[in-house]
């Protein structure tokens, strides 16, 4: 049984990789199986995780009756299937969008704005009170200038109410340079992590399936 699974896995992996050559029937078959199996898997997973474990067990075993509100909203979504009263399905949708926006606003605001600003207010050239200028190690000074300067110029770049001209434009340009250099570093870092995905599949093909890697 394991051997059959191994061969099917290898067949589908090579089918997906064959897309690198061009779109072909092997890829189409692998894609259709992948989509169909995964959609079915998620349907079952969500049914048991949400409707059974969370809702049914929550109501019957734990007495969490507030879950009925969610169930009603979910039921209202299904009213889309009845054309005459399909408009009711917009209510739960509006509730979800509104509630989620409000809920995440505080988290985003406190982590992306408040904490970032508070942590950027830092001495550039010294580390302790009473120290004269340039007493911090050169590495710390450079890091502080990059963090404070990069945050400030980045904010200038994302300021939409003023044209990027003159000194403001120069600052914004520095900001986008800082952002692009950050992207360059991120690019290299992320590519390395993607390589590990490829290595994983190659290990499956040449190791588990063909047995060429021991």
């Amino acid at each position, binding site marked *: 049984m394991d051997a059959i699974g191994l061969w099917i896995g290898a067949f589908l992996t090579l089918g997906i990789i064959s897309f690198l050559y061009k779109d072909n029937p092997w890829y189409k078959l692998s894609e259709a199986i992948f989509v169909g199996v995964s959609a079915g898997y998620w349907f079952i997973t969500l049914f048991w995780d949400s409707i059974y474990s969370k809702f049914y067990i929550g109501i019957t075993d734990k007495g969490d009756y507030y879950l009925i509100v969610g169930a009603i909203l979910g039921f209202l979504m299904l009213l889309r299937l009845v054309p005459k009263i399909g408009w009711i399905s917009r209510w739960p949708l509006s509730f979800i969008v509104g509630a989620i926006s409000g809920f995440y606003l505080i988290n985003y605001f406190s982590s992306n704005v408040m*904490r970032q600003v508070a942590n950027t207010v830092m001495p550039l050239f010294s580390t302790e009170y009473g120290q004269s200028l340039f007493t911090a190690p050169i590495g710390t000074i450079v890091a502080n200038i990059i963090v404070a300067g990069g945050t400030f110029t980045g*904010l200038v770049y994302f300021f939409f109410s003023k044209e990027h001209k003159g000194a403001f434009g120069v600052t914004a340009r520095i900001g986008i340079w800082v952002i692009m250099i950050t992207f*360059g570093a991120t690019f290299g870092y992320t590519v390395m992590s993607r390589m590990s995905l490829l290595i994983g599949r190659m290990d499956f093909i040449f190791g588990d399936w063909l047995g060429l890697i021991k």
Partner: protein
Amino acid sequence: MNQIIKRRVITRLSSIVIIKILFLSLPVVAEQLIPTIDDSVEAFIPAPPAEVIATDAVYDQGGAVHLEWQLSPDDDGSAGVYNYQICRQQEGTDEYIPIDSVLAGVSSYIDETVEPGRSYQYIVAVNGDCGSAPSEASNVVTPNIEWLNFGLSNLFVIGLIICGSVIYFIAHAKRGKKLFIRRIAGLEAVDEAIGRATEMGRPILFVPGILDMDDVQTIAALTILGRVSRVVADYDTKISVPVSRSLVMTAARETLKASYMAAGRPDAYSDDMASYITDEQFGYVAAVDGKMVREKPATCFLLGAFFAESLILAETGNSIGAIQIAGTARPAQLPFFVAACDFTLIGEELFAASAYLSGEPKQMGSLKGQDVGKGIAMIIILLGVIATTFGNAWNISLLRRIADFLRTLFEVG
């Protein structure tokens, strides 16, 4: 034969002698190994910790009690004290139950296993070499639910300023005053990209990321979809919106429907424009890639939350020669879009896009209000960095106090 018997007898006798010597010598060796107990020295039991104070943790849902105590006088870093055992007595019971322990030298603990509305009392026992010594019982504490978190007061005030600015600018825009927004290259290209697809007679592909409606990027993407589909409806171009979440499919269909109705072409709308594929990340990518190479859309919009699939989608779009406009707020994926797409909306630009594209007073006012927030942040950073840098260097207490104040304004409790 006799010699063999003789040898065996000698071996046996010598074994007996060796064993006897060993047994006889054991008490002597044992006496030397085991130290004698000196009755004049007392067993070391550390002095107990004192002043155990229990307080209800502030601004929480009544699920935590904060404990503090004075360390045992013998807890001076020497090896005699091991740890402190926290014991708790719950209202209605008459025994203290150990709940946790902390290392020597630690004089506080947060009990996060309490229930709101119930009373508790604590004892902290110090454990030493030869025993433990419990403290006096703490005060009785009853954790309560706090409905308001005053630790976030600064967040509330700054939020009020920004919301006030948004309301002011919306009213300003509604009065017909023009609000200036600088040019955003990626968004200038939207109409051009739709026009290109129309001229080529090829469809437009719109991918709203792979996360659900609980992500603001997905919401931002669907807002842009509203604007894009409005133009698409005007131009009578085909649009396809494959999604990986059922809720996003529903929202996308509603958005498309509203746009087609606003364009006066409800008959041209079809539910098939937005289709669910699968929740599985790479299954979704495989299907969208297949769709790209088969339908060959002239324009691809990749807007929303993306993960590892960002480069796969962008590269496939690039390979079919589509003009690509991408945007996300995920820093790890932006480099791939910058490298493989024609235009990229970076972070905040994605959220500004709908206001920019629509020019509606409400959205423009919202964008302007956010700019007020950014302006405040810029001023605080500039003043704070100058004050703390020179306050430190020249030891000017006024500058240091200003820097501390500015930092405190943005610190979240």
